């Protein structure tokens, strides 16, 4: 057995835990019912713990990187301007029912938010949040976590990780020191697991059927910045950026001012997407990525090459949301498979 600290809990106890957290003024967020979004809850009966459920429409990234985040407030006065930092105090937060493909995205995004300058807006949310991940027994034609180095049982990014066991119980692993501290603080809801408990674990989920070799995709991308493939796959893209907004790892943002009247307002960071035509347009009118195929190439290359070159991680966890929601049916995994095919033809 691994040295990982293991506990046993039950569906009933987790619902009671929600009650205890709520009394202690925690922010409690749960995966929503089948096919919906994450929701704030206060009552144990609203907790959704379901390993079989389809991923939420939006990923969990908005709890670390909100759609709109105030950076500071400004107030103009007689002799200049006052700048005020956002004063919101973040409550301790717990996220229940996070799938491996969402949880893993947090440390992946953490790389870009910390490689040199530190984005404390992201960091402070991560620090305040306990991620309770859960093994996933759902899979559809869109997901492909096992091709990005993850699996339905991967605990990357989770603080506590739950695996379903018999009789509505769960084996809980404390993955990080933060997760361990959480289990200790709420120890009445977690019992130490013994060998017999661990035997109750359900069979490992078999995972998605869709597969490709991400290393080979990278190898191909290394040498095919110019390639007819980009026109083939990029031409139908509408540039709506649904793929970026629902993606747990896409992290591009815009910075804009929102004024309320002449004298005051705030500067905010908003989600943005590289599939928008104006994203890279210079003030002169020149646009380095002026056509959709060039923007689609950027999306694939950023995910499977650039981010790896720079930060050693694939910028994709295989959640399948980009494909599930694409209005014109562009399938990122099929593109990766096509690249694999072209690679093997070349070899």
């Amino acid at each position, binding site marked *: 057995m691994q040295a990982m600290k293991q506990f046993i809990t039950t569906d009933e106890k987790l619902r009671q835990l929600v009650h205890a957290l709520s009394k202690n003024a925690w922010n409690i967020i749960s995966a929503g019912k089948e096919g919906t979004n994450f929701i704030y809850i206060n009552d144990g009966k609203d907790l959704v713990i379901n390993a079989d459920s389809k991923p939420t429409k939006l990923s969990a990234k908005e709890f670390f990187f909100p759609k709109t985040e105030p950076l500071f407030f400004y107030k103009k006065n007689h002799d*200049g301007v006052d700048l005020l930092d956002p004063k919101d105090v973040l409550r301790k937060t717990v996220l229940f029912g996070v799938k491996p493909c969402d949880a893993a995205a947090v440390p992946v995004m953490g790389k870009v938010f910390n490689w040199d300058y530190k984005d404390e807006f992201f960091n402070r949310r991560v620090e305040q949040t306990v991620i309770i991940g859960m093994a996933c027994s759902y899979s559809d034609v869109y997901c492909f976590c096992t091709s990005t180095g993850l699996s339905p049982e991967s605990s990357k990014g989770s603080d506590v990780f739950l695996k379903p066991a018999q009789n509505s119980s769960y084996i809980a692993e404390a993955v990080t020191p933060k997760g361990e501290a959480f289990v200790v603080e709420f120890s009445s809801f977690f019992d130490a697991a013994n060998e017999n408990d661990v035997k109750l674990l359900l069979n490992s989920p078999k995972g998605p059927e869709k597969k490709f070799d991400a290393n080979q995709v990278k190898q191909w991308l290394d040498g095919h910045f110019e390639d007819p493939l980009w026109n083939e796959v990029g031409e139908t893209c509408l540039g709506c950026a649904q793929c970026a907004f629902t993606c747990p790892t896409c992290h591009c943002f815009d910075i804009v001012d929102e004024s309320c009247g002449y004298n005051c307002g705030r500067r905010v960071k908003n989600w943005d997407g590289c599939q928008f035509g104006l994203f890279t347009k210079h003030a002169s009118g020149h646009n380095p990525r002026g056509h959709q195929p060039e923007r689609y190439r950027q999306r694939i290359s950023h995910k499977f090459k650039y981010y790896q070159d720079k930060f050693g991680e694939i910028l994709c966890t295989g959640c399948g949301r980009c494909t599930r929601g694409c209005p014109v049916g562009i399938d990122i995994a099929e593109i990766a498979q096509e690249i694999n095919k072209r690679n093997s033809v070349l070899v």
Partner: protein
Amino acid sequence: MENIYKPELVEILDVIDETPDIITFKLKFKDPEYHKEFNFLAGQFAEYSVFGEGECTFCIASSPTRPDFLECSFKAAGKVTNAMRRLQTGDTMGLRGPYGNYFPVEEMKGKSVVFIAGGIGLAPVRCVIWNVLDLRDQFKDVTIVYGARSVADLVYKRELEEWKQMPSVKTVVTVDPGGETPDWNGEIGFVPSIVEKVAPNAENTVAVICGPPIMIKYTMPVLEKLGFKEENVITTLENRMKCGVGKCGRCNVGNVYVCKDGPVFTYKQLKELPEEY
């Protein structure tokens, strides 16, 4: 919490109209201590804010050898730059930076330098020009070739005169054919052909070039013919930026973040990157 997106306040000390649509601001941090400790190198950029309008990116156009104030020159092109145009002496702006890498002024010491600029491209080059001229005896020959569409479009006119008067600098200013005035006494012709005519010696020389893509495209072969190696030709990129600190994902060229790994690149480095700038 450290807030990397919050600017420092600066006051506009002076507003200089360079051309009908290019303006230079002279700026000073409102906090004198901050101003004293603010260090930057030639080629770095900053994010400038007008509160209520937003932020935009300009190079720092003044030289680090002249730390009393900072300067930026901008073209009214969009939302923020047009709002800046309405600001006056005494008004408050925001500034965060300096960001990005810089021209290798230290490595250029002991060598000759050729500056080639077109239009508002003189702004980042001017920063290095003053840096070099303020340490003039540490460099060999200094040549400046600057061009604009018309006489009215030349920026830093008073400084162009000053450079022309300096015996230790060869300054050639040109306007595009048709852009001259009756009393124009400079060159008439496009920058690439003027560079060919001036024919700076490539031996132990670094070329700093900045201007519209079309100017750079036609000047490069001229420099090659004169014997300049790609690693000795340096330019600065202007990919659209928002954060300036390697977060917002907007400025990349392949796996390079222009705001962090650039904006200054040698031609050799640029050739190794995908053409996305």
